[in-house]
């Protein structure tokens, strides 16, 4: 089934006359930048998931909240779908435009409104880049913790929409744990303030509900994030293993020892080689797996934890353990990991990144299953993952110019995600469902659960105009797709040990 919006299964969209809509928007907001010529629309036809492209009807680039409000009111009155976009770095097609919809680009809202070092929060506009917040807080010895790999470019509004993570989630949490308030506009153009400068606010926890809601419930117009004091020191250990199984066991042993590392990452052989070729980080290319374990905090505790982790790694069968001698080496160790995606990109014309998350104890099972699937589909898979929290990023290598390879890669990806669900995991840990994983949602949730999600949506956007076709599939799509979750005893991967 084609991944692009299909009215037959995703729901009918109203017919919109682009000229009429353009004229009304222009009349209401003479200074609003509206893109409508084909050459201007091209850069916006996809987000970070570039395999899927759709030309939007119009692109609007507002600079004031009042403009966003007016755009929403006009679109609501005309029943025009609205797809929000931040920096466009999302990996699941959450900002994939609709041919019959307006693409609302929030990137120009890029002002940091307030950095409050006493109360330790920053109030920013949604287009502010993730890293820019930490840079603005740095003079006060503070920073914003979530650090997705795209942090140089991705916007905080997009981070909220996806509940973005990063390599330090196990200890410092996801976006949901680090945002204390947001302002949003509903599809009807009403302003809501969710959360507060305080640690909680009365009523239902709509702030939590909006985190990761993928632009389906409202448009984020302001974000207040928590700032943390920078840890005094951070040291990183790199351990080599001659099997991914023993590396996986080492991860459980470190946690079992009562240590929560700042970062705990694993890479398999193919990923190690790709990263080493690209970055020359000093990775052991002969190893089957490496673990990067970062310990941060106060000097005395970090020194103590390094020794404890060293001992655990030794017992778990690490073939070598090295401690980054200085900050330069620490940064180099991390550079290999942080550039793993582009590094793999150099080995293959195209790659496709998955985002399943599993209970860590099933890591060996899922890796073996992935290897078997890789062989069956005839496509290489490099494995990079946030081992501490079980979030896997298998990278499927393929060549879109070879007929059928993209389809094979998609199918292989889908099978890996189904394997994650089968061991009690989820199809997406931090990249979001977007359009990419819309079919796998039918595997993870049954019709009643999907109906519950649709009811949540209806409370905020009764007409379904915000980002239609993303995040939650229609029951029709699941039925047509034949992937609706089957009941116990008939689950996929019947050979797997059940949880």
């Amino acid at each position, binding site marked *: 089934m084609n991944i692009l919006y299909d009215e037959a299964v995703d729901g009918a969209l109203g017919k919109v006359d682009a000229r009429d809509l353009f004229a009304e928007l222009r009349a209401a907001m003479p200074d609003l930048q509206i893109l409508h010529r084909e050459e201007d629309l091209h850069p916006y036809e996809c987000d970070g998931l570039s395999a899927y492209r759709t030309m939007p009807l119009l692109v609007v680039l507002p600079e004031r909240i009042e403009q966003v409000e007016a755009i929403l009111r006009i679109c609501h009155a005309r029943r025009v779908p609205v797809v929000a976009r931040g920096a466009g770095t999302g990996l699941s097609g959450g900002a994939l435009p609709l041919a019959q919809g307006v693409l609302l680009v929030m990137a120009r809202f890029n002002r940091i409104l307030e950095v409050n070092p006493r109360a330790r929060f920053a109030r920013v506009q949604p287009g502010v880049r993730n890293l820019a917040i930490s840079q603005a807080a740095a003079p006060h010895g503070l920073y914003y913790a979530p650090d997705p790999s795209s942090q140089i470019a991705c916007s905080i509004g997009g981070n909220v929409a996806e509940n973005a993570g990063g390599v330090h989630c*196990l200890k410092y949490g996801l976006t949901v744990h680090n945002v204390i308030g947001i302002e949003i506009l509903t599809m009807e153009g009403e302003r809501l303030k969710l959360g507060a400068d*305080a640690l909680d606010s009365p009523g239902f926890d709509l702030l939590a*509900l909006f985190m990761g809601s993928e632009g389906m419930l409202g448009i984020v117009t302001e974000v207040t994030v928590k700032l943390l004091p920078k840890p005094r020191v951070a040291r990183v250990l790199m351990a080599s293993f001659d099997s991914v199984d023993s590396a996986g066991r080492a991860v459980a042993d470190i946690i079992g020892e009562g240590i929560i590392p700042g970062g705990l990452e694993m890479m398999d052989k193919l990923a190690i080689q790709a990263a080493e070729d690209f970055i020359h980080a000093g990775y052991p290319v002969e190893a089957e797996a490496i673990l990067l374990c970062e310990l941060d905090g106060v000097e*005395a505790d970090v020194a103590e*934890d390094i020794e404890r982790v060293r001992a655990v790694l030794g017992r778990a069968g690490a073939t070598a353990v090295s401690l980054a001698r200085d900050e330069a080496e620490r940064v180099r160790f991390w550079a290999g990991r942080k550039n793993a995606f582009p590094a793999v990109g150099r080995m293959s014309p195209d790659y496709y990144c998955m985002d399943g998350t599993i209970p860590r104890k099933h890591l060996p099972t899922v890796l073996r299953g992935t290897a078997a699937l890789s062989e069956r589909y005839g496509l290489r898979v490099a494995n990079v993952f946030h081992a501490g929290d079980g979030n896997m990023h298998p990278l499927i290598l393929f060549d879109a110019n070879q007929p059928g390879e993209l389809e094979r890669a998609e199918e292989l990806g889908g099978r890996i995600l189904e394997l994650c669900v089968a061991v009690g995991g989820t199809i997406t840990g931090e990249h979001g469902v977007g359009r990419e994983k819309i079919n796998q949602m039918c595997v993870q949730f049954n019709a009643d*659960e999907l109906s519950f999600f649709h009811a949540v949506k209806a409370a905020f956007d009764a007409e379904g105009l915000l980002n239609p076709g993303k995040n939650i599939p229609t029951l029709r799509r699941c039925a047509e797709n034949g992937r609706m979750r089957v009941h116990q005893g008939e689950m996929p991967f019947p050979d797997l040990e059940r949880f």
Partner: protein
Amino acid sequence: MSTETRDADRGEELLAQVCTALATGTPLLIQGGGTKAFHGRLGRGALLDTRGHRGIVGYDPTELVVTARAGTLVAELDAVLDASGQMLAFEPAQFGGQATVGGMVAAGLSGPRRPWAGAVRDFVLGCRVISGHGKHLRFGGEVMKNVAGYDVSRLMAGSLGCLGLLTEVSLKVLPKPRSACTLRLDMDVPAALERFTEWGRQPLPITAACHDGDALMLRLEGGEGSVKAAREALGGEQASPAFWTALREFQLGFFAGPAPLWRISVANDSRPLLPDGVQLVDWGGAQRWLKTTAGSEEVRRAAAGAGGHASCFTPGACDSPLHPLPAVLMRYHRQLKAQLDPQGIFNPGRMYAGL
């Protein structure tokens, strides 16, 4: 069911009870240990007791996740985690050993460690819930990161049972700190508030900070090295850690006495102009407890003036114990309630009148 003390899966019975309520249009009053009548409005409806549906259904310390049925006692869960050197980092109250896991999540109240570790909702990873459409559903899961679909599990936290019946929750757990120390420092409230903002900007191992009206109480937790270093740097005298349990359980002398108790939630560095009464500052300044006979209007004006909100924790002292919502926000609350509980059977009016 209330005398039941053995683990049992009563999911089918709870589902049948909800379906009967839906069929007959009978509102339900969901109750676990019945320990939180002070929080929110008085409920009405047919009693639905969750305590028979109890037991820990999954716990693997190396996964940092525990899954328990709603009727499981918080005290029992605490004991099981403690035996493996782990804890619920948000430090929930046990309320005389009667509080249940379902009530803990539905009420959303967190203890002294909240500003540093996070609130109940921050540790909720997944849940099972019986919906207002009479279905037993599962959301989230037992993994640390999960962005498939809307975050229903966290929406349920603090919803006072108004959006569905929680039957099971999965929670992230953390290792207990290797070393801990409680300090008492003599200073007044304004000085303590100033310290809180200074210390908050430094990577100190503080995990609780309270001014009880007499002195500043501080808890340090972490590795031995960091706790020792911070203790030397901060001064003060060593005190009993029992203080934090008493604070968490509302057992300090401060909480006794007839004047209504208010909880005021504000930015940690704010200086709300509170009405006359006695004050206890917790959460490093972000949570203020106030015993006052002042009217609710006056207390709320002070809280709102500092960008926060105020809830009354003395039953019957105030008609709307939870801080009223702005009209637009209330409308979306009603719409959400109408979608998820169309017949209005789950704890109607428990949070706000008409919701």
